[in-house]
């Protein structure tokens, strides 16, 4: 074996080899054509590179649309350079010298993977291959039965080949695999019988049940997270994320150490509680209002696009009608010109046809002008409406934020009052309660405490202002983007249409011109 291995010059995939491989797999007649024209590597969907002593995979990045790749019977040692072949459905790497499964993460469409006769000792790095149906990893160095559990994540796996691995010597091998992969239909080229499955399930119930439980839990967790994420996403599009609850309020106090200290002052606890409930209720209002406004905005946008779509469809139909009319009228025109009895007749007919084409061009362009004008107006209306919606939203948000600020100010005043009275009491040593040392530190003189209170007030106001500006800027951005998109879409559409018309007319002209050459010769 080693001698054989040594005697052969290892190869690397290069253009020449690829070209040859492509040519080989073409039928003869097409091959000739292909040779003459050259082949676009993007069009190749299947490639066979077996028995070529390839040592290293390379130069395959151009085959973007490849669905089937055979690299069997080479001396490849490492799976690499396959990242760009994302459409791959079938990958054959059997009879190579691969030791580690890797580099397959981007091949998410892979259904059939063969790693037969390699040197792999662990099943790993395949989490993204969720479409996998057939997996062949026979004649490798797999030793532990528990490796099979990894394969449970492939919900579509129906055929598995594990023969020739050391783990197959285990007496329980078949039952273990069948028990852990209950959806398997073929194992090691044999149909899994129902009786085997029953026996296996019974035998390994204790092992598989906790696994199943775990998986179910994980799935539930995932779903929950996704649902939450989705909810948050929804709130974000409505610009009111984290406003349903005390999140903003908590964040206002989160970094404020002074406030925490002040909370120990007598009576502040209650005050804080009352402040909190009020603030949260205002936030809640804002949140609900935000969601409502969001629905309104969405409805407005979808209304607009519906109207736009209606207009466009009507326009498209009209244009189509004009073209169909023209085509029906001129179905036989070219033939007539072509086979006209005399040059004059052909010429006159040609002129006629030319005139007709011109008219068609005119008609289509007029139609386009019309719809462009109409749509411009439509979009202007839309812009206006969007602006109105946005400004009312902003106004109301501002109002609610002012409510928040008022609450904050009131709280601030009351806090000030309390702290001053406490200070006075403290000065007079009339305090009933024991206060923590750092709180006592604040109660040394009026300036200190007022400063502390003012500082924390400032922080809170800042938080509110930031949240407000977030909402406002998001709203402005939304307004701009929606309007911009509508305008841009219209511009693109208009350009596309004009180009289409021009091209179509050109095409007709060209056809006519081509005929002209033949006309007189007959």
């Amino acid at each position, binding site marked *: 074996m080693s001698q054989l291995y040594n005697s052969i010059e290892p190869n690397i995939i290069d253009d020449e080899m690829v070209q040859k491989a492509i040519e080989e797999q073409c039928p003869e007649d097409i091959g000739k054509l*292909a040779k003459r*024209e050259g082949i676009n590597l993007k069009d190749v969907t299947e490639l066979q590179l077996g028995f070529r002593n390839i040592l290293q995979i390379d130069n395959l990045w151009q085959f973007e649309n490849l669905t089937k790749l055979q690299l069997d019977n080479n001396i490849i040692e490492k799976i690499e350079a396959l990242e760009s072949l994302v459409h791959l459905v079938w990958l054959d790497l059997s009879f190579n010298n691969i030791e580690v499964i890797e580099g397959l993460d981007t091949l998410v469409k892979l259904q059939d993977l063969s790693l037969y006769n390699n040197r792999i000792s662990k099943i790993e790095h395949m989490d993204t291959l969720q479409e996998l149906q057939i997996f062949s990893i026979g004649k490798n160095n797999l030793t532990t039965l528990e490796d099979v559990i990894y394969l449970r994540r492939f919900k579509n796996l129906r055929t598995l080949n594990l023969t020739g691995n050391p783990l197959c010597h285990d007496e329980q091998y078949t039952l273990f695999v069948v028990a852990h992969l209950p959806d398997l239909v073929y194992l090691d080229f044999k149909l899994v019988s129902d009786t085997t499955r029953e026996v296996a399930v019974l035998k390994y119930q204790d092992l598989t049940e906790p696994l199943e439980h775990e998986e179910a839990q994980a799935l539930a967790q995932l779903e929950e997270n996704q649902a939450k994420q989705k909810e948050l996403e929804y709130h974000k599009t409505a610009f009111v994320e984290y406003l349903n609850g005390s999140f903003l309020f908590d964040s206002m106090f989160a970094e404020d150490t002074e406030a925490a200290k002040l909370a120990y002052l007598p009576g502040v606890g209650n005050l804080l509680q009352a402040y909190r409930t009020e603030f949260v209720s205002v936030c809640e209002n804002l949140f609900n209002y935000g969601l409502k406004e969001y629905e309104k905005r969405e409805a407005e946008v979808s209304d607009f696009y519906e109207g736009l779509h*209606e207009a466009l469809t009507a326009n498209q139909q009209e244009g189509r009608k004009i073209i169909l009319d023209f085509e029906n009228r001129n179905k036989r025109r070219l033939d007539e010109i072509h086979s006209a009895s005399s040059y004059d007749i052909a010429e006159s007919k040609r002129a006629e046809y030319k005139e007709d084409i011109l008219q068609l061009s005119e008609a289509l362009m007029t139609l386009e002008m019309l719809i462009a004008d109409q749509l411009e107006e439509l979009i202007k209306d*839309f812009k206006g409406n969007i602006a109105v919606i946005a400004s009312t939203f902003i106004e109301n948000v501002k109002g609610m934020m002012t409510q928040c600020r008022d609450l904050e100010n009131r709280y601030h005043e009351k806090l000030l009052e309390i702290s001053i009275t406490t200070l006075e009491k403290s000065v007079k040593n009339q305090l009933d309660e024991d206060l923590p040392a750092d709180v006592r530190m604040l109660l040394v003189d009026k300036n200190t405490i007022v400063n502390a209170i003012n500082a924390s007030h400032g922080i809170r106001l800042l938080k509110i202002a930031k949240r407000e500006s977030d909402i406002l800027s998001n709203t402005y951005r939304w307004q701009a983007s929606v309007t911009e998109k509508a305008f841009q879409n219209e511009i693109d559409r208009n350009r596309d*249409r004009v180009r*289409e018309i021009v091209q179509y007319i050109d095409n007709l002209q060209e056809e006519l011109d081509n005929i002209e050459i033949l006309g007189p010769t007959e």
Partner: protein
Amino acid sequence: MEVLEEKEEEEQTGEELKALEISDNLQDVEMKVSMEQVCVPSDVPDFDWSSIDTSQLPSSYKINSPKEKKLLHIADHFLQQYTHLCPDRKPLFLHPVNECGVEKFVSTTIRPTLLPYTELYHWDGCASFVSDYLTMEPLKSPITPPSSLYSPTTILKYQKGNCFDFSVLLCSMLIGAGYDAYCVHGYATHEICSLDETLKLCPLLRKPQEVPKEGMKKKSNKYRVKPPPDLQSKFELQQEAKKAAETEAAQKNKEREEEKVTEVEKPKRDPLYGLRVHAWVLVLSGKREVPETFFINPFTGNSHSTRDEHFLGIESVWNHRNYWVNMQDCWNGCKDLVFDLSDAIRWEIMLSRIKKPLQLLSDAEEEKELSDRDTDDMQEKGEEDMSFDMPPSWVAPIQISPREFETRCSQGRKVILYKKAKLEKWAPYLNGNGLVKRLTVYADLDCTEVVEVREWFRNREDMLDMREVNKQTQLTTEYFSPGHLLGLKAHTYMSLEPETEHTMEFYNEARVDGLQKRVENDNKMTEYFVGRDDFLHVRHMEFGKRGKKIHLASTRTDINSRPIVQIKECFHRNLEKPADEDVAERIFLITEETIHLTYHLKDKYITASKKDFFKAADGDRKGNEIVMTPEMCITYQAGSSEKDKKLLHLYKALQQLTEEEKQLKQQVRQSEAEVLNILKIRENEETAVKLTVSIYNTERNKKRRQQYEAMKNTMEDELLGQEEQDLDYLAPFLIQIGHRKKMTKGQALRVRDDCLTDLKHRLIDKANIIQARFEKAVEELQKKNQWFQENHNQLSAEEEDDFLTCCSEIAFRIHILALRLNREKQTAPQKYLALEEKLRKDPRLAEYLGHA
């Protein structure tokens, strides 16, 4: 009611006789008319009800039970009070005589019965059955109720009756089926009373009302493009509108004149309007999920709303329980009547109840009674609730045999005339071709010019359901039920000749190719498909003239087929492909060797991509090497200017198309063949109509019955054979020997002897047993005698009787035993001899015993 009363009063003033005369005359006329209309073919026009045989009827028909007598008494009393209270109203219809001349109360004439046919579980089935099964007879006098009311059984037997007979029968069936139904005695229009439907549109011709589709599109969008500026002259438009209005006005005038003509057709006013007595059925809401109270006209079997203007008034209603008199005013027909029978002011009840009105009767009780009804001992339970309970019906159970039920109308045929239409009905299997219904539509009121004939069939093996022949266009359309051999659904044609105009519709779900419709005429064929995987929905083929262009078309298939000129296929959008790779239409111009492909429109585009292939005519010149040249294909790619699509792809596409063209040609030939096949099959089916018979219909399904009987016979034969086999008298002895096949003479003799001795033992045993019994009986007798002798004096007369009977019994037994013993002694030797003889002849032993 007032209106009626007033009218009556007017007429009553001395002109009663005259009125009666008029009515008699009228009735005669009506009789004639109705006879013509109903088309009772060559029947005895006046069926003599007095000649019917009443001798076979049960006694309940002929005499009144005491309870019935009491009921009649109560009824008379009620009538007296009623006439006293309402002297103006007509006498009530309470107890007419039945066919045996006995007065019976009307409620007892109703015999609630549930018949064992699923159709008759619903009111419409019952109503149409009654209207079909019975032949209508007009009332003797159209303005008075009949003097007699026969039992439903008699009516069923003779299959004819007046409106009261109809109603009673229908009511019996409806109550039996669980409906809250009542017979109604009232007044109706002439058309209703005389079963004159010539002014009505045939219900089969009534078009289903189109539900206006609105609300969907109404949502106006504020984003609507403004219409382009209108550059038309307003003045011109005005002028045009004026002109249009003028012509319209002229048209209207014309129409009005026409309307006048049609109005003449309407009948003149009926002089007896509002006086014509009629009986019908009222079904109250509540039971059997009837949502609303309605009438059923028993003559037609149609339901009518209680506000129907044809029903002009109600005198009284009754069911099997009670009798109610209407006390409401009928000046406005039945429109304002309230059908709350528990309302004592509106409805005067005859047998008043103390506790609960009928409508509140619990369902459970009702059902119990229903089941009791058949066994004649009904209504014992509810009795506590009522002061006087209605006696059970005197009528025998209503029975309809399956054959009668199937045959429906007398002689299995019925004709109904509608406005400009004639409807004929037949019993199934009566006509050899399965015809059950025929509707002839006429252009005029006199029914002379046939417009259209529709025929309905049943039980046909070819699943033909209906045939529509339009006499004006000569177009025939046949509709098939699912299950025809070729999935045929409808077939429209002028003649069954091939290559003429045909439209065939198919049950596309039943076909592999999803073919829904195929339209063919002399040189075109269009096929419509539904739900195909390749999104094909239309295939259109054009054919050339036969014979002339044969050299162009493929001659090898068959010379007779028409050359194909063009095949066009249209596809729906396949959303999995991009629009400009998804073919919308492809045209194979076979004679010109070109293929046109048109692709689907891309989103928002108005021009479709196109490809035109011109097959290489010079391909053969260079041997068989086909070279693709850019001239062979003209491409227009919408929305992209780059045209340099590789020839390779075009070549592949062309190759594929050529292949498909070949297949398509074959497909077309197949379609043609299928059309021919269908036409042939249809012709065969039409010439030899076969009717299917359900395997459960043993009466008709002769084959099935024969099969069944044959099976039964063979079963019986087998059983007999088995029995014979079982009784092999030699078996036990042969088993003793062991191997049966070979037997020595000695063995055979032993078998014989064993057998004979066995029989001897048996016979002796038997004799012994009899002897023992005999002796025992004698002994018993002796003992008895002895006992009697001893206690002779102390015995009572009774005991003595006992003893005597006992003695005689024992004596009898002794006698019998003696006889048997005797006979046994006589027959034993005979039996022995017979067995010996039999053994000698037994094939298993014969060869050995024969020599002996």
